[in-house]
């Protein structure tokens, strides 16, 4: 007797007579497989046992190879049975166990009998199992069965054979390629599914032969394929032809456009999507494609609305004006019950929004905001933040909107991103300060997250004293001292002290407030109050400024990591240098709705920014990892110590097939280029991956060699290296740029099994150019006294003047100069006040080789046309070569 457990479930009124499979025991079921051996075969009994096995598999039980082999061989006995349902179950069981069991090949002879059996069901299923069991050595013997099945009269069998062949293509492409004629024949099959599968297989067979694909597409677009699946697939093939051959022939475009009028939504959508993504589409074609999408926006089907709005969202990034006709329909979608649609609609609308309708839009969004969950709100907050750069005049609406999200119920993650957004707006639009500050004052009155309160108090102290009415903030801040916990009180005290320093008229009052804090029960609060108070009494502004105002020149978490790493290393004879700390802030991505993660790890997105999984390694951490890897490579061991590792430069689009980025490691006389490569194609493995670099000026350096990656599997990033040598004394600084190509041998891999096909072909992939810039050789230094240092050094004859072409704003120019020179901006000159007509940047750094200090002063203003920026640069240092090198970056 088999005991089925009864499921004890309080929620459902389960009938006690019902027998459940839930408590099935694996051992017991395996025992029962003896039913398969009985003669004559009892179909019902065996069916039940097979069902139980299937249930165990569905439940996730695992079987050892020995168990699986036993079951597999026991089940083969059932080939004798003539009971059709039992056979069907048996096929499925064999298929499931064929991958775990040993010697599954044994059943091939039985299966080949079934492949030509008169019952269709046997034929179809036998083919499917054959596909699972065969390898490239057996397949040639089975070829004729497959060929026959592909052209089988029964569409079901034909489909099964075609789908199996698609999988077999990865096992043994040469053999499957020989079936092209049969596949071609079945394209004209009446069945929709067969047509589709045949086209998909034929396209895959010819994939690497552009001419053949083109021929195939040419013939099919004339013959009007009937199956909607096949039509959709054909559109994709046509797109491929257009993109790969850059053909001028409009016939493909015409075909795609004709599909727009298809009655089948899937085909029409595919056509519209393709047109929107093609670079060569004419405005007229885009208009008609957008017209179709607009129609879909009003569809009753969520999937169709989603598809339409997703495509429009993508189009809006490259061609916002084309999307405008759909605005009204998208506004209706803001309240769509399917939130992913609503969120996409919002972000699209915000992208194409203009000065006149953006307020209305924001109001509209605010109304329904209560209905969406935090994940989507974060997406909306990000879109709103982008608006602030586009429409700075609308800051009032933006701040009110963001503030509403901040005040409403929500997770810390949401509130943190909202607060970040507000800080961003305040920093970019100075006019928004007052309104934002007073809103935030209200917010901290009743804020449940201490972290946020501390950040806000910090902001109030920093910005409050500089507003027109500093008085009004003090009350809010002092309330915190009276009402909140220690950590917030401490932040509040610091904030109050800043007012005293930055706004002279309030100094006396501030001192009174600080006195009151002297008796606080929290040590930190008392300490801070005591320190500030005594400094105020001495009127020691210099020290107060250092304590209160001077920010750390680097992000604190990076500093913390660098310090930890410094302490962890054995040799601490060299003093810690703050200049080595990376200034790039760690960016962790959370899954977003339109989330194209730059890391192609599809499911590896971390759900919260605090959860730093591998994609979100901080810059500092990844540099440390890189260095650890480098240290293990004997080839580079003789180079000495790494003087500097540069920040990551992307050499491809983050969405391309192969993603490559580069880090330069500078040694005393060598540079090692580390290329981080990721292969995003799951059907390919890359062997012998290396980057070929062609220098523009080969004389200034010598090539020392490279290290290739043996095997680069999908989504498993690895690094290859190129090393060059230089000598400043003999050849000067290497002023050079490189043209780069990724070279590799591509090997096809079956994504479902991970098995590789041994034959591969050599291929290459162009990468972006790479330059050696002064910043590679300069380290940031911070000096509190730029003026004195500047005047000590001799004046150069006159400033060097040049233009930054295509750089329109002072902000962009400032960014570019700082990043090219790699020096530290001083006295907050990296921030350009709004509406200013010119700007001066002060920079300091030192040579990584000699430690020679170098200072620079850049005056920038837009040129007469407004599309370029004029720069007057003065560089001072005791090292003439270094000065010339720095100038060379621009001239």
């Amino acid at each position, binding site marked *: 007797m088999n005991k089925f457990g009864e499921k004890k479930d309080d929620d459902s009124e389960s009938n006690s007579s019902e027998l459940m499979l839930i408590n099935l025991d694996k051992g017991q079921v395996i025992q029962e497989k003896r039913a398969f051996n009985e003669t004559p075969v009892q179909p*019902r009994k065996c069916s039940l046992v097979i069902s139980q096995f299937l249930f165990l598999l569905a439940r*996730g039980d695992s079987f050892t190879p020995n168990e699986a082999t036993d079951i597999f061989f026991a089940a083969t006995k059932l080939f004798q049975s003539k009971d059709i349902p039992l056979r069907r179950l048996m096929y499925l069981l064999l298929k499931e166990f064929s991958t775990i069991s040993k010697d599954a090949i044994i059943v091939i002879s039985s299966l080949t009998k079934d492949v030509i059996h008169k019952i269709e069901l046997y034929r179809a299923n036998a083919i499917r199992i054959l596909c699972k069991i065969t390898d490239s050595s057996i397949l040639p013997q089975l070829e004729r069965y497959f060929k026959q099945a592909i052209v089988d009269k029964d569409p079901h069998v034909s489909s099964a054979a075609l789908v199996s062949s698609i999988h077999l293509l990865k096992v043994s492409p040469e053999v499957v390629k020989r079936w092209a004629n049969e596949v071609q024949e079945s394209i004209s099959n009446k069945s929709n599914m067969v047509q589709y599968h045949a086209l998909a297989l034929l396209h895959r067979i010819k994939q690497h032969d552009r001419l053949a694909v083109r021929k195939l597409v040419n013939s099919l677009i004339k013959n009007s394929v009937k199956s909607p699946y096949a039509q959709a*697939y054909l559109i994709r093939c046509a797109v491929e032809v257009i993109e790969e051959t850059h053909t001028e022939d409009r016939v493909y475009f015409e075909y795609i456009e004709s599909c727009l009028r298809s009655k089948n939504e899937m085909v029409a959508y595919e056509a519209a999507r393709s047109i929107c993504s093609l670079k060569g589409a004419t405005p007229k074609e885009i208009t008609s494609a957008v017209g179709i999408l607009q129609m879909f926006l009003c569809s009753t089907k969520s*999937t169709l609305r989603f598809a339409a709005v997703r495509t429009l969202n993508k189009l809006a990034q490259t061609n916002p004006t084309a999307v405008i006709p759909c605005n009204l329909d998208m506004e209706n979608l803001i309240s769509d019950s399917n939130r992913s649609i609503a969120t996409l609609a919002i972000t699209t609308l915000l992208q194409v929004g203009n000065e006149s309708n953006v307020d209305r839009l924001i109001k509209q969004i605010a109304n329904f905001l209560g209905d969406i969950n935090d994940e989507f709100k974060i997406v909306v907050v990000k879109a709103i933040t982008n608006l602030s750069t586009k429409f700075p005049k609308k800051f009032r609406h933006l701040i009110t909107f963001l503030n509403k999200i901040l005040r409403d119920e929500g997770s810390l993650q949401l509130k943190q991103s909202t607060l970040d957004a507000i800080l961003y707006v305040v920093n970019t639009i100075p006019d928004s300060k007052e309104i934002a500050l007073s809103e935030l004052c209200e917010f901290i009155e009743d804020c449940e997250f201490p972290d946020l309160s501390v950040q806000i108090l910090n902001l109030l102290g920093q910005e409050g004293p500089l507003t027109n009415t500093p008085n009004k903030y003090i009350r809010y801040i002092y309330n915190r001292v009276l009402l909140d916990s220690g950590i917030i009180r401490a932040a509040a005290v610091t904030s109050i002290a800043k007012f005293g320093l930055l706004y002279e008229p309030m100094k006396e009052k501030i001192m009174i407030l600080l006195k009151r804090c002297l008796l606080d029960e929290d040590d930190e609060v008392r300490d801070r109050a005591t320190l500030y108070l005594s400094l105020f009494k001495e009127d020691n502004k210099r020290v107060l400024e250092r304590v209160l105002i001077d920010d750390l020149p680097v992000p604190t978490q990076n500093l913390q990591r660098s310090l930890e790493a410094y302490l962890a290393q054995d040799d601490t004879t060299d003093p810690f240098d703050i200049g080595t700390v990376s200034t790039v802030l760690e960016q962790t991505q959370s899954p977003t709705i339109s989330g194209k993660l730059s890391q192609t790890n599809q499911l590896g997105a971390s759900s919260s920014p605090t959860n730093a999984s591998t994609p979100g390694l901080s810059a500092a951490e990844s540099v440390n990892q890189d260095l650890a890897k480098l240290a293990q490579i004997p080839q580079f061991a003789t180079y000495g110590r790494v003087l500097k590792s540069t920040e990551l430069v992307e050499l491809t689009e983050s969405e391309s097939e192969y993603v490559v980025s580069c880090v330069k490691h500078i040694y005393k006389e060598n540079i090692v280029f580390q290329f981080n490569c990721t292969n995003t194609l799951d059907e390919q493995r890359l062997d012998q991956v290396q980057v070929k670099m062609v220098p523009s000026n080969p004389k200034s350096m010598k090539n020392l060699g490279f290290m290739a990656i043996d095997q680069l599997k999908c989504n498993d990033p690895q690094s290859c290296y190129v090393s060059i040598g230089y000598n400043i004394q003999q050849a000067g600084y290497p002023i050079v740029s490189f043209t780069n190509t990724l070279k590799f041998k591509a090997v096809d891999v079956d994504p479902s099994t991970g098995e590789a096909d041994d034959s591969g072909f050599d291929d290459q992939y162009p990468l972006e150019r790479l330059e050696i810039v002064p910043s590679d050789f300069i380290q940031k230094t911070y000096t509190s006294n730029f003026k004195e240092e500047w005047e000590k050094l001799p004046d150069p004859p006159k400033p060097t003047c040049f233009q930054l072409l295509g750089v329109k704003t002072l902000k962009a120019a400032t960014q570019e100069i700082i990043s090219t020179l790699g020096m530290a901006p001083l006295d907050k000159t990296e921030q350009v006040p709004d509406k200013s007509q010119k700007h001066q940047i002060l920079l300091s750094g030192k040579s990584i080789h000699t430690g020679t200090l170098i200072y620079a002063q850049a005056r920038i203003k837009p040129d007469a046309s407004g599309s370029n920026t004029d720069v007057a640069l003065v560089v001072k240092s005791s090292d003439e070569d270094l000065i010339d090198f720095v100038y060379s970056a621009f001239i």
Partner: protein
Amino acid sequence: MINNLLITNLNGNIVFSKYYNILTEEKQIEFEKLTYQFTKDEWSFAKGEKHLVTEFSGNKIVFTNVGDLMIFLCGSNEYDELALSEIIFPLMETIKEVCKKKGVTEAHFIEQIPKFVLYLDEIIQKGQIDQTQIESILNYSALKHDQPIKKETI
């Protein structure tokens, strides 16, 4: 390809799952958690077998409600929301078919999982769509001795 199929009860407990892409168990759990977070608020809108959709990290997920169950079908690349929607139809139909005697409840479905697997085998082959015509699927997996096999004693 079609990445995976999840079937849960209305509390979000997974009743059936099938992964066609190769994922570690941790990744599966993470994926399932995210799927839940992104969709849970909208389950009530999926009533009446409406197909809803969401997207994260490059995965598109079409989900819907049948009786006491939620179905989530996830795909990427060529399997976009429309294709998934097309495939989820026969899935819904087969679930209704296997539970037809007593209505689609969690308990009935669990009991009929072996039969459902049989149908599923006709619809999706190793992450590729095979058949979507419900008639032909039922035809080819129908068990002639269509008594509930569980009542047999051995």
